[in-house]
């Protein structure tokens, strides 16, 4: 029995954390958050140099050959810093090509994606909350038509993995004719979303796309759960810190039991749930019979409680918590992204119920 991180995994989190402390400090996060593109080339380059673009890809394709748990730990560390950029969509796109692509497709794309020479993303969600592979409707034999909503950083991505009717996956290149991209104006300014309109755009199927799609979805659920854990625990820390410094009636407000108990209830929701996302990430590679359900439960639970914690964090900060200048909003909005992307908690709880045979 060893349910703890290895030394290598702890080192990974420390290294990434240290890098972000230096290169992605609060003022820069704020600048990117408020900026036009939600993207900083230098920060992105630094992350690639740390190996974050290919942690989960095979070594022969330029990756680090690690597992989903390692990718999720990186996602947690990035989330804790509020690091803006295309990490999430890029990770899922490269995983999709790895799991569903032909050998030729893999060797064409993976080394470039792992090395940061190209950015990838995924186009999954459709109008009406259709996120799951069996719900996708886009059709096209070689030429794809239709609309995908909520595509992370489509405008930056050279290649987009698009979910199509029947639950398969296809590749669409940004430079192809019939591809139109427009910003959504998403709530989380640290992870920008675009609408992808396809009008007879040439596409190329991933031969094992149907097998890969649910796995990519599950990996996405775990990464969102990891990010939600980061948002929730960061907000607890910020709220506790505020309670230790803000004074009223001549004492720090952390003395007051009403606030103390509110902070404890936030921590008691979030802290144990770290193990839930660890378990789901571990199950993805090691407990195949539980992987799908564990991912659904982790995403539903963590994003639900992260949102509850985020609302409580605003209250714990008083009036300042409601302002644009207060950084609480950054993680509040990341939690909103985590909650809605790939389907709400209710969707994944129902899936978990079905998968349990209830």
């Amino acid at each position, binding site marked *: 029995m060893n*349910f*703890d991180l290895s030394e290598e995994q702890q080192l990974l989190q420390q290294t990434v954390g240290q890098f972000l402390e230096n290169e992605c400090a609060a003022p820069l996060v704020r600048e990117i958050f408020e900026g036009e593109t939600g993207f900083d080339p230098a920060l992105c380059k630094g992350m690639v140099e740390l190996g974050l673009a290919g942690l989960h890809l095979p070594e022969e394709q330029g990756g680090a050959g690690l597992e989903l748990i390692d990718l999720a730990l990186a996602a947690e560390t990035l989330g804790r810093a509020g690091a803006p950029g295309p990490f999430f969509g890029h990770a899922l796109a490269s995983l999709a090509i790895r799991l569903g692509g032909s050998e030729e497709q893999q060797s064409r794309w993976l080394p470039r994606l792992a090395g940061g020479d190209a950015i990838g993303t995924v186009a999954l969600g459709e109008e009406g909350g259709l996120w799951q592979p069996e719900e996708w409707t886009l059709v096209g034999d070689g030429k794809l038509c239709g609309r995908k909503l909520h595509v992370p950083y489509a405008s930056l991505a050279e290649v987009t993995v698009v979910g199509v009717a029947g639950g398969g996956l296809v590749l669409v290149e940004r430079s192809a004719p019939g591809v139109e991209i427009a910003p959504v104006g998403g709530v989380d300014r640290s992870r920008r979303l675009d609408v992808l309109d396809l009008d007879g755009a040439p596409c190329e199927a991933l031969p094992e796309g149907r097998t890969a799609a649910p796995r990519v979805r599950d990996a996405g659920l775990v990464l969102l759960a990891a990010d939600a854990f980061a948002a929730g625990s960061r907000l607890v820390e910020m709220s506790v810190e505020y309670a*230790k410094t803000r004074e009223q009636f001549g004492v720090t407000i952390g003395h007051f039991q009403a606030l103390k108990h509110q902070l404890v209830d936030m921590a008691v929701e979030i802290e*144990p749930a770290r193990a839930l996302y660890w378990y789901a990430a571990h199950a993805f590679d090691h407990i195949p019979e539980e992987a799908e359900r564990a991912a659904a439960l982790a995403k539903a639970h963590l994003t639900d409680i992260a949102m509850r914690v985020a609302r409580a964090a605003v209250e714990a900060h008083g009036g300042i918590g409601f302002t644009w200048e207060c950084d609480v909003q950054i993680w509040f909005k990341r939690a909103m992204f985590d909650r809605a992307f790939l389907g709400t908690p209710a969707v994944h709880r129902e899936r978990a119920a079905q998968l349990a045979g*209830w």
Partner: protein
Amino acid sequence: MDLTYGKEYEEFREEVRAFLAANWPPKGAEAELPREEGKARFRERAVTCGYLARSIPKRFGGSEQAPDEIRAAIIREEFFRAHAPGDIRGIGSMMLVPTLLEKGEEWQKEKFVPPTVRGEFIWCQGYSEPGSGSDLASLKARAELVGDEWVINGQKIWTTNAHNADYMFCLCRTEPDASKHAGISYLLIPMKQPGVEVQPLRQMTGGADFNQVFLTDARTPRDWIVGKRGEGWIVSRSTLKHERNSIGAAAQSTAMFAGLVQLAKSARRNGRPAIEDPEIRQRLAALEGTVRSHEYSGYRQLTLDAKGQSPGALQTMNKLISTNIGHEVAKIALDLIDDDGLLDPIADRAMGRIPSGNRGWINQYMYSLGIAVAGGTANIQRNVIGERGLGLPRDAYAQGRPGK
């Protein structure tokens, strides 16, 4: 990460299983013995093999094993699976014995530890008083030394099992002029004497697990004190480095949740199994998120304990998390049993027996509130988590003031 126990521990598990297969339930002539005697023989053998009383020295009737959280967890799992008698879980072996082993005189250990470990001495805990709950150190029960005996006067409350107990370990004020915490001593008091009157305290379920204990010139020998005069508060806080059973509480929550899912499968809603109802499915899956978080956090704490590392704030949270789960299980169960929620939990049972079926869920609905209060209310737990876990400042009112 590896969720198996590993080769060495799986071998150990096989060893435990073989022991259980050979010894429980009792075989041959032993199967004819009265049940309690059969259990006692089994326990004796399990101690000899190192499976029970692991943290107790051999000379006091234990098996004196090196602390090993994982072995302890395997033993609990396998004994539970075989329905075999485990360690005596009374308050005597759980609280008094570790305290005596750390702070007691040699003769006290010899006299009290072995029979307590065997379950022959039953103990109750005399801590809370009607006027001293959360603020325990304000307690007023007085003990005065008269000749060679302590003479004790006062009232204790919430005394689980006092009606069965042979002895009480009791906090009494012996130094009335000292400050609040420094005026308390830790005494051992025989229960079967004229100065001790036990009155059952019936709880809202109708059962009576607690008591009030009236001490009126109750007596105990001068040397039945653990630690020195005025050290009782410190003695009562002492805990040994023993196996912490960090997954035990979570396992109970998991088992309770499994029971709830069974209930949802058998209960009906709109003529169909209730588990097909979308609202019930949502609530069950939402609760499962909390239950599994608790369960997997238990694995993590087990791992850290085994490595001698601290899980930090998490370990202060276990009781509150279990309490929260108990509340939520109770609420969902009450909705599932529908108009059986009109039933009295123990109307058709002898007093004190735990009811089964839907009446059992009503009992749990109420009992979960008792659990939330026992051993420190949920709000006291929140203070502990806030102050020790999150490092928030202590409540000004909780700073020590004189006892008088």
